[in-house]
């Protein structure tokens, strides 16, 4: 994993200063390194000694790294720093813009690829009719293009604050997402319960000097499942994904009865876990942090690839205990369709319920013609629109009714006819 070849560890007594500087370099590289950790590191190095470069590496590693994704950054900074501390300073100055700046500010290939084309995916013959019939179709064209290249773009959420959007956000924040609780194996005291609570009875009797006056009762405790949201943030979804993120923020921070945990992921060309960021109280700060974390805003879509990454890295971790998956995407994908189908199957097998919110469904003329949609549809439990506040509110129904299929049955029938 790491090359230790040329790492002269300074033998002089200046190691305290060196470690402090090293910590600063790590901090610049984005690792959360506080003074406490620096002191720990100094103590640890004193205990472990300088005998071996490798030990030195792992000693500092134990003190400064606290997350798997930081390991690589640490290894690189370590290698650069202990080779030549000054060299690193130069590198840092050069590297930072390099990391942020490689991407060209490339506008989405506006109306080059028309929405209808993307939607129908190969069935070009029907394009003109569709556009004429549906007057609103042309307006949304621009937002439905996708580009295959990953546009490394950090999104500025400031631009969102128009009057309507602000109002919409307030409304979104109030949408409750009721959920059906699950019965747990454990019990809780309850006056109306039907199971005798012997321990509770004894405890009560203690208060009255050992006199049992009435039986304490208990009942099965209820618990709430987890919600896992996978939100498409590619170019063709940008108008909706922002609204949906507001919605997820509200769900993540809902107090009281609700989801046990809300895990949120964004995907475009890569999968990003933004759960931590959405936990922040302030919605703007939360979305700004999430925007900085996800580097693939308004780029292309590789649904199959991203679902694969989710299935591989996260599904076993977050989909236990009856979790419900909320998949928010338009289903316009360029990956191989067989792969998408396989990944969707895997997802449905791992989750208690998969609900697909597709903003394209708002059109009356919507038909499951795009390949991606045809592959995904059979593998979801419920298929619903997700383009306005009303449709998000209707989502509540989907969550409380176990047999809710949304529009899936109708569209499956259409697919059968075609």
């Amino acid at each position, binding site marked *: 994993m790491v090359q230790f070849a040329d790492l002269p560890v300074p033998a002089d007594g200046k190691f305290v200063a060196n470690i402090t500087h090293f910590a600063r370099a790590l901090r610049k590289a984005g690792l959360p390194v506080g003074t406490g950790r620096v002191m720990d590191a100094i103590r640890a190095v004193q205990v472990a000694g300088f005998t071996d470069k490798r030990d030195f590496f792992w000693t500092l590693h*134990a003190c400064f790294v606290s997350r798997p994704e930081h390991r690589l950054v640490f290894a690189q900074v370590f290698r650069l720093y202990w080779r030549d501390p000054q060299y690193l300073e130069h590198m840092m100055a050069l590297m930072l813009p390099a990391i942020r700046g490689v991407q060209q500010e490339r506008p989405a290939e506006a109306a080059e690829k028309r929405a209808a084309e993307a939607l129908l995916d190969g069935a070009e013959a029907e394009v003109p009719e569709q556009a004429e019939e549906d007057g609103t179709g042309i307006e949304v064209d621009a937002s439905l293009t996708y580009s295959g290249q990953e546009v490394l773009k950090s999104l500025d959420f400031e631009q969102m604050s128009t009057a309507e959007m602000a109002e919409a956000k307030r409304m979104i924040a109030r949408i409750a997402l009721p959920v059906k609780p699950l019965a747990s194996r454990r019990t809780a005291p309850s006056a109306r319960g039907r199971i005798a609570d012997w321990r509770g009875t004894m405890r009560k009797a203690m208060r009255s000097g050992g006199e049992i006056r009435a039986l304490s009762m208990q009942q099965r405790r209820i618990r709430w499942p987890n919600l896992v949201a996978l939100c498409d943030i590619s170019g063709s979804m940008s108008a909706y994904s922002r609204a949906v993120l507001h919605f997820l923020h509200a769900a993540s921070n809902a107090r009281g009865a609700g989801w*046990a945990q809300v895990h949120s992921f964004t995907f475009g060309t890569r999968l990003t876990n933004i*759960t931590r960021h959405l936990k922040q109280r302030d919605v703007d700060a939360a979305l700004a942090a999430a925007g900085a974390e996800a580097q693939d805003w308004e780029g292309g879509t590789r649904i199959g690839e991203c679902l694969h990454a989710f*299935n*591989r890295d996260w599904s076993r971790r977050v989909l236990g205990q009856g979790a419900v998956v909320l998949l928010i995407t338009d289903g316009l994908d360029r990956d191989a369709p067989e792969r998408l189908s396989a990944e969707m199957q895997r997802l449905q097998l791992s989750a208690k319920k998969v609900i697909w919110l597709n903003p394209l469904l708002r059109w009356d003329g919507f038909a499951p013609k795009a390949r991606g949609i045809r592959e995904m549809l059979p593998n979801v439990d419920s298929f619903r629109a997700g383009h306005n506040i009303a449709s998000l509110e209707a989502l509540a129904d989907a969550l409380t009714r176990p047999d809710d299929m949304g529009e899936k049955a109708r569209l499956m029938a259409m697919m059968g006819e075609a």
Partner: protein
Amino acid sequence: MTTDITSIDATQEMLEQQNYICGRALATVVFLALKLNRPLFLEGEAGVGKTEIAKAISAALGRRLIRLQCYEGLDASSAVYEWNFPAQMVAIRTAEAEGVEDRDELKTEVFSEEFLIRRPLLEAMSPHVEGPPVLLIDELDRTDEPFEAFLLEALSDFQVTIPELGTIRAPEPPIVIITSNRTREVHDALKRRCLYHWVDYPDFERELEILHARVPEASESLSREIVAFVQQLRTEDLFKKPGVAETIDWAKCLLALDAVQLSPQVIADTLGAILKYQDDIAKLQGSEAARVLAEAKASAGMAD
């Protein structure tokens, strides 16, 4: 510190004697955790030996292993202590029958340590003759955040307060090992108090050593084949990669079947011991297993 471990080498050797083969990296953090009295926070995939290390340390140092298995809804009464109400009741009834009048005396009697049910955290804070115990807090990510906050408090002072008895403080802090499967991020405040290590899958040589230590009855050539195959399998695109535990299980399965060497047929028959998902097993059907086996042999430099 009461342990007489003086160096990283000694730590590695000590663990090896317990048949726990670990890399230099893990030995370093274990050594630091013992030396600096810091909790050790281990993350990694399932089946890489996170829980095992606590067992190895406790066995090597001759300390008691106290395990706190975390789950959702874990509360203080199952993690710290609980009063033994039925026993208290019996004591009161007996006292009444004997005609004990003094209420205060009775009260101090029924709220004494005798009637206290010690749960793992309190147990770990109590004095032990053989020295501070090893406290294994397993799968911390399964609990909820309030418990995490409580744990943070308990681990920073190594003391718990029982209203009726007062504060119980660990005479010497226990050796704390925390494991997480990373179903969610554990809060930074807790991580900051710990030494962190990500436990990775071992490399070929290390895994072979582990297999020799754990399944010594397997022949050298079979062991090499098994490890090479599993290592190759981990590079494949699988839903759940096999852990070290699976390697050991599989070796035992093969021994039970009297297999002397791996063949596609043998692999097909025993694949359930290493791969636990139907998708993954389906991927290795037919010629795939033979291909992986051939690649494994090639990369390990074994003749076919």
